[in-house]
């Protein structure tokens, strides 16, 4: 390149060289440059396949009329309603059930079940729906084109489509018009080393403690102990999705 006779003046060449080098470094070896930089910084290690994050919800403890977890989720992620229930974002919702045969009544909360084999990830044409190595199912809004096929595929009605332009989103959950979203299992807290989700925190504060978050892969974790000693169920277990969210006493 440099032995071309019509080569430009030196400083310009330097500029071009610099640009090319920078562009080259970034396009050819993005991992290298970024991680070299990250090493200077206090970057977190990131998600690890050693963990599988999950939740247990005790339906006996979920109190009638309580919406503490929903409110906490809404404020944690700055989900604002517009009094349009069919289009407003719903990341977590209470459901009250009555057995058709016996009349037994249950109350529980539904949210993204963070499946091991998530149908939303299978159907997403652009890989925007994805599962992290630690089992958290998320939407990469940089890739989501808003086709809503994942919402068609989700057995739990867990996903919402952002139906209007937003501003003042939370840094915890950048989100915007035209993309699909759902419960992130408070992934910003997980990444920061936090061991409680916003909904769990709120539920405990209310004195119910119906929600327990933890590492399903760690046999020492509280969630693993609870699941080992109690009979739990997955919702729509027939689909064999191996959900990360389990229910007690349902």
């Amino acid at each position: 390149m440099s032995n071309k006779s019509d080569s430009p003046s030196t400083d310009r060449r330097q500029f071009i060289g610099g640009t090319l080098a920078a562009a080259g470094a970034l396009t050819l070896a993005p991992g290298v440059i970024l991680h070299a930089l990250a090493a200077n910084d206090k970057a977190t290690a990131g998600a690890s396949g050693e963990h599988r994050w999950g939740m247990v919800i005790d339906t006996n403890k979920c109190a009638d009329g309580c919406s503490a977890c929903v409110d906490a989720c809404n404020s944690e992620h700055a989900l604002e309603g517009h009094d349009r229930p069919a289009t407003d974002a719903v990341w977590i919702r209470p459901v009250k059930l009555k057995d058709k045969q016996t009349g037994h009544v249950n109350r529980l909360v539904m949210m993204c079940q963070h499946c091991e084999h998530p149908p939303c990830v299978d159907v997403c044409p652009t890989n925007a729906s994805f599962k992290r190595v630690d089992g958290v199912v998320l939407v990469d809004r940089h890739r989501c084109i808003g086709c809503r096929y994942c919402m068609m595929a989700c057995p739990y009605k867990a996903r919402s489509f952002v139906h209007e332009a937003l501003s003042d989103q939370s840094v915890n959950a950048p989100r915007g018009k035209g993309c699909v979203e759902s419960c992130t299992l408070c992934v910003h807290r997980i990444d920061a080393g936090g061991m409680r989700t916003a909904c769990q925190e709120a539920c405990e504060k209310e004195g119910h403690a119906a929600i327990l978050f933890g590492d399903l892969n760690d046999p020492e974790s509280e969630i693993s102990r609870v699941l080992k000693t109690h009979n739990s169920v997955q919702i729509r277990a027939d689909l064999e999705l191996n959900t990360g969210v389990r229910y007690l006493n349902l």
Partner: protein
Amino acid sequence: MRSSLISNRRLILLLTVLLTPAMQVLAESAYVTENSKAAVLERCVAPTDVMRRNHMDFLRHGRDDTVLRGVRGLEYSLAECIDCHASTDASGKAVSVADEGEFCQACHGYVAVSPACFQCHRTTPDSAAGRESLGYRFNANPRHPVGQPVDGETDHEQ
């Protein structure tokens, strides 16, 4: 392969010639908005010309690391850009970086490139509760205080 390199180079030359006037305008302006944290800091997370040239690539690679792999607290974080570069108005309220004449809009408006970031990301520092739990805030103390030399100045240009 070689021929494509040459044509790439020609393209870059052409773009350089075309963009030189624009570059000069940018080079002459020492643009940080007043009343922003950045206004009283010595420098950004990398030398200014590097940031000007490459901020979009830094952010793009950082976003994949964060969203897909859960790596937080990276050197380059959009949330921190905004924390530092958003200015405050007379009443002390934060002004959106995408408003007329503000940090992001000033250049992006000039070159007519719409920053897509703000379709999803907020444009003012997030003062709401819960932010301390964010991975990116691991190092709570301000990163580049005034007058303190930043080591590894050249490390960034690898």
